[in-house]
């Protein structure tokens, strides 16, 4: 018997607006508990929400990028339920008229190309966090996250394999990052994915689905899908039935547990939020947002090849993450040297990122400093070794290139007499007699060794070409 897996995704993305959805509090992650709160986001009696327009704009950007129709008169609704992390006991969300409808995203996997339908994108507010203290058995509430804006991107049940899910999420992540609407840090919870999954015999009726939560990485998602697919198939094979329920994935144990079934499902008693006016999106506003849309990744790749003469391979690596392509474009613009910039980022920068396990989203490096270094090396003010050294210092310690170079004496020595002096000293050194003999005997490699000695004498700042010709001249 052939089983088919049918999946749909609900992706919550925290918007990277500076302030919260209904008040001026900061959205920064990781502040001291309850340090980013005010009467509004902590839901004190009598407060009213005031919509942050940037939230609607970010949602519109996501909707436009995902080929949605923008709802011109969209409304907010209240979703009512009791939980200690929800101080108003209702979440402002959208049920009846979400801001974006009917979108799609093209994905590509080994199985080929596929279009995933997007049912809607709606705006909502995040809840706070409960912190359990296992020692005292007490639970504390941190409202910092209360009112951080979210969009929920709801797909159609168009996925048939875990690969498709991951391909969609990667593409979605790339899109949101490019738009600058979400930083997509799964470990900080700014991107959260719920997977709705059912299985059926190929071509048969849709099966009963479960919803999986607490998926904290793409890897976890892939594992959870595999686990849930197997679990449902085993159940059905043995004559059992799948129960419609919410399940919680435990990544350490590699299993999921049922949290609540449909029978216990809450009635959220949605109704229109009376404290907020509908969001009316007129042509002018929509056009303004359309014009402000950043270039999508695939367009960027084409441009890098045509405009900058990069290879397709180089272009696609540089556009895997917005932080990387932003850095590339900044350095490029400031140095005017696309090829050199690409080499620097694809080479030294990525190597150092690998070595330090720095993720692209956490990359923080001053593009101006890199541009300065590129100019210095191309103008032969520093040599390649010094260049590498300073790049590393900028990457690890945010060093100021000019200061670092002066301090370490890395300005290239382009003075003939100094170079000749160093060459003479090295050649006069008895310990180098062997190498000199070797070179004269036709062993070209020996010149490299001698050059190294001269460079050492020059504190690493010698001009390689000058050193080489001076040595060759002296050894004639």
């Amino acid at each position, binding site marked *: 018997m052939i089983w088919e897996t049918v999946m749909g995704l609900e992706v919550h993305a925290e918007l990277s607006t500076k302030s919260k959805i209904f008040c001026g509090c900061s959205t920064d992650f990781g502040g001291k508990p309850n340090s980013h709160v005010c009467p*509004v986001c902590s839901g004190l009696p009598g407060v009213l929400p005031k919509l942050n327009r940037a939230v609607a704009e970010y949602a519109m950007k996501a909707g436009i990028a995902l080929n949605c129709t923008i709802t011109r008169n969209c409304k907010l609704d209240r979703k009512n339920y009791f939980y200690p992390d929800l101080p108003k006991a209702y979440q402002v969300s959208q049920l009846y008229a979400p801001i974006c409808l009917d979108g799609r995203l093209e994905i590509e996997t080994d199985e080929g190309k596929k279009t995933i339908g997007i049912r809607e994108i709606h705006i909502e507010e995040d809840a706070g966090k409960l912190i359990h203290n296992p020692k005292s058995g007490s639970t504390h509430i941190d409202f910092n996250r209360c009112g951080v804006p979210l969009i929920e991107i709801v797909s159609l049940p168009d996925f048939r394999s875990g690969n498709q899910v991951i391909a969609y999420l990667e593409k979605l992540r790339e899109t949101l990052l490019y738009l600058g609407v979400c930083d997509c840090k799964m470990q900080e919870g700014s991107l959260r994915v719920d997977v709705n999954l059912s299985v059926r015999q190929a071509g048969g009726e849709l099966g009963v689905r479960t919803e999986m939560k607490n998926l904290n990485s793409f890897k976890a998602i892939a594992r959870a899908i595999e686990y849930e697919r197997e679990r449902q198939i085993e159940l059905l094979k043995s004559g059992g039935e799948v129960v419609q329920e919410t399940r919680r994935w435990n990544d350490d144990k590699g299993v999921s547990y049922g949290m609540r079934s449909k029978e216990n499902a809450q009635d959220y008693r949605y109704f229109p939020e009376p404290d907020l006016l509908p969001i009316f999106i007129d042509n002018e506003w929509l056009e303004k947002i359309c014009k402000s849309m950043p270039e999508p990744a695939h367009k960027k790749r084409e441009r890098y090849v045509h405009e900058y003469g990069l290879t397709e391979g180089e272009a696609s690596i540089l556009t895997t993450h917005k932080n990387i392509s932003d850095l590339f474009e900044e350095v490029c613009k400031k140095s005017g040297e696309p090829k050199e910039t690409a080499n620097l980022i694809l080479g030294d920068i990525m190597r150092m990122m690998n070595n330090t396990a720095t993720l692209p989203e956490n990359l923080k490096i001053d593009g101006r400093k890199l541009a300065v270094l590129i100019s210095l090396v191309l103008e032969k003010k520093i040599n390649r070794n010094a260049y590498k050294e300073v790049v590393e210092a900028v990457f690890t310690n945010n060093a100021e290139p000019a200061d670092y170079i002066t301090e370490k004496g890395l300005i290239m020595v382009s003075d003939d007499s100094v170079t000749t002096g160093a060459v003479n000293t090295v050649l006069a050194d008895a310990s180098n007699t062997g190498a000199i003999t070797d070179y004269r005997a036709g062993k070209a490699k020996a010149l490299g060794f001698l050059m190294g000695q001269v460079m050492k004498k020059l504190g690493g700042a010698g001009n390689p070409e000058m050193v080489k010709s001076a040595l060759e001249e002296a050894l004639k």
Partner: protein
Amino acid sequence: MKFDMNALELSKLIKAKELSVSEAADACINAADKNRYNAFLALNKDSALKRAEEIQKKINAGEEISPLAGVPIAVKDNISTTGLETTCASKMLGGYIPVYNATVIDKLEQAGMIVVGKLNMDEFAMGGSSETGNKGAVLNPWDSERVAGGSSGGSAAAVAGREIPLSLGSDTGGSIRQPCAFCGVTGIKPTYGSVSRYGLIAYASSLDQIGVIGNNIDDCAAMLSVISGTDNRDSTCVIEKPFDFAEAYDKRLDGVKIGLPRNYFAQGIDGGVKRAVLAAAKELEAAGAIVEEFDMPLTEYMVSAYYIIACAEASSNLSRYDGLKYGYRSPNAKTLSEVYRFSRSEGFGAEVKRRIMLGSFVLSSGYYDAYYKKALQTRALIKQEYNRLFEGFDMLISPVAPTTAYKLAENLNDPMKMYMGDIYTVSVNLAGLPAVSLPCGFDEKGLPVGFQLIGDAFSEEKLVGAARVYQNRTEYYKMKPGVAK
């Protein structure tokens, strides 16, 4: 009593230095301290006296603050006041001390008014008699065995009893106008969206509106000018600039067309109320107005639509009182679910629980379309009808309540009877319209009768003008409890 005068007179004396701000505040604090009508729930003694001195200094320095500078006021207990216990007359919010001021409080303080205390009400503004609060019923100054009306009963009784010259109330379905009628004082329920609701502890967000209660229309208008206007913390407050009543008419109403809903007087209305309200219509006619009768449509749906919408919103608005963050927490609760269940069961009174349950029911899946959605459609029709009426009329004249003040506890166990008492007031809130409530005589028991003038959205200037004309021609608003009859 030195203090037995209206607010604008008082501020004139203060400005002329014939009376100090502290003396005025002190007189109110003493009256509030005696609390003869149980109108006050909390007193702001120390900080009020401190504020009085600050305002006095400014006045002495010749600073022009506002026409109401130095006037003591009191505030319904569902309006948030920094540092001053705000309970909505509920055990649920016992001990809750807000950390922020409602926008209206900030505006009143900037205008130099002194908040001396918080006023009793129906619990969470749910009721028409001010008997459901956890600190007992407000007594009607005209007859202490009778209710003051509600839910802003404390706000009306304190003004009627001359304990305070001006007060703030809130009106969700008649909660300013009806107690004004029962206590023989003047009140304005402004257009929805003309006064910020920020800091008004919500009962039904789409209907709630803060308004003013005083001894005459000029005092009320002066205070409304101060509190109206935009507020960037309330996006439903859509008014462009504060009301200015300087130009409102005060002599004649020539050519002003007033509609009189014939069917409001047909049945279920006390004879004394009917006589007094029709006499008021005659008085307006005598001042030049053209009064025309019409049949108010949809009256049989108004109370139902109102209670469905108000309770639905209330069920959501009152969910935040969960026993976890502030106010009452049941000492008997051991688990999270018990904290919710016990705290809410013990903290809320019967009427509040009735409305939460009703509201939860009409929003629940399977019933939403049959009740809540239908009520919204009814509301839209009522709005349409009012729009149509205001194409022909400048304003409407109507009774405020079918009866005068009833005996304490008389209607407490008959919610349907209590709800039907709102028949003349709720449609104004459903349509978001302004109305003024004015004393217009007494019934055979010597109890005050009130009438209301209802206007189109943001037509407060017209209403205040008509009220001025009416009060310039009549003496009812000057009557004091114990003096009339």
